[in-house]
């Protein structure tokens, strides 16, 4: 039984670990993309300019209402089509180019993460104490200094629980990229199942690996939250 999961030609341990590596890479690359989009969405939806506010609101509302797998297909096929159109316009002789499923995964998952993160960050911004910003201005801080020294550290504290949930959701959503043929944990599991004909064993293994990743994430997040709140007196 354990031979199945061993390294080398007889077992599937190395293949599944390679898949896991792709899954982790995907999640880690997506995180900064999603956070950036989240900040942009939060700033846009708090902007003084009406059209920008509308754009931010539209993005967060629509993206949050769509199934992640639909977003993934829209990005994978849509961006692929656009890319090919652009390339053909550039060089008509060129054949069809395949859009990298990894890039499609990063963009799609990043867009979903960004939409939810936009709401989390907006909420965090709105719970900042206005008096502190005013105090910063009163002692002559620039807007950048106020953001960096007063708002950002507290923003982090308010947004961390929400962002932590989003990270865990995103980690789980990476399983979707197996559908567009990226060799992540889920797809390597599928390959192993195809050969060994032991679907339950291998899908259970995949579930357990995701589970471990989520529980570990929760532990790290708990520790980060405690650290972020170390200067705060706990309410009784």
């Amino acid at each position: 039984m354990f031979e199945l999961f061993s390294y080398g030609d007889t077992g599937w341990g190395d293949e599944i670990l390679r898949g896991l590596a792709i899954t982790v890479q995907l999640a880690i690359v997506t995180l900064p993309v999603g956070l950036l989009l989240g900040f942009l969405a939060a700033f846009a939806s708090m902007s003084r300019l009406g059209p920008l506010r509308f754009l931010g609101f539209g993005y967060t509302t629509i993206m949050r209402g769509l199934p992640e797998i639909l977003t993934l297909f829209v990005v994978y096929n849509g961006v692929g089509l656009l890319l090919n159109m652009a390339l053909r316009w550039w060089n008509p002789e060129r054949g069809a180019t395949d859009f990298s499923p990894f890039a499609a995964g990063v963009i799609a998952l990043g867009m979903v993460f960004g939409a939810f993160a936009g709401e989390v960050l907006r909420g965090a911004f709105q719970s900042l104490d206005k008096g502190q910003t005013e105090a910063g201005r009163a002692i002559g801080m620039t807007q950048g200094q106020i953001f960096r020294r007063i708002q950002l550290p507290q923003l982090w504290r308010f947004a961390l629980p929400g962002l932590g949930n989003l990270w865990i959701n995103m980690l789980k959503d990476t399983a979707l990229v197996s559908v567009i043929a990226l060799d992540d944990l889920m797809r390597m599991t599928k390959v192993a199942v195809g050969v060994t004909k032991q679907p339950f064993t291998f899908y259970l293994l995949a579930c357990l690996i995701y589970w471990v990743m989520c529980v570990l994430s929760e532990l790290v997040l708990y520790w980060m939250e405690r650290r972020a709140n170390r200067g705060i007196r706990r309410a009784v």
Partner: protein
Amino acid sequence: MNPIEIIAQYWPRLLDGTLMTIKLTFLGALIAALVSPGFALIRTHAAPLAQAPLRLYISFMRGTPILAQLFLIFYGSGQFRPILQDWGLWTFFRDPFNCALLAFALNSTAYQTEILRGGIMGVPQGEIEAAKAIGMTRFKTLRRVVFPHAYRIAWPALGNEVILLMKASALASVVTVFDIMGRTRQIFSRTFDFSTYLWAALIYLCITAIFVLIWRQAERRLSRHIEAHHKPRVAAQPAKEPQA
């Protein structure tokens, strides 16, 4: 083809897919709604050791991708085919719709249980003491005092969960259930017309919008007796879900 031609030619399929999505979501949420009150009571009242299996189940359901859960049930059942055939359950597991429904119901049960637990814990102790003081039995207290208030507290979070389930139901297309997503992929593979996806997006957004309106109306009904004085209490979001 242009977007109008797509919808003109393929609307019967998309309509069929829409009905399938609604059916999957509704039945999945309903089954979970029938099971979760009992589980929530275990979570709030049972001894910690007795809760252990339930907590493990909830943690598993929330810590693994729904796609993996779906594959575990749909493909995984194949490994036990002889046993399932003996028990006469094989015809159930062979149908992708049944497997998807089972996966979604199991998943949603875990989330709804946690949401409802939050609701039950949000009921003020004084209300339960008052019920005891006028001689209500424990069962009657649950039925007339605890659950009505717990559902009112949990209502918005439960609505979010149903929307998340509706979004997750699109995964059923991966195991060949023809819901909106399944029909969309089928149409796209024939036409290679990108607007197919945009129609699908529009349908999903419409379903969500209509659902939100209905849910809000129901919330107003649930709290009509206190509306004049103050707004209903809203439960904190369940630990692991963003607001949908």
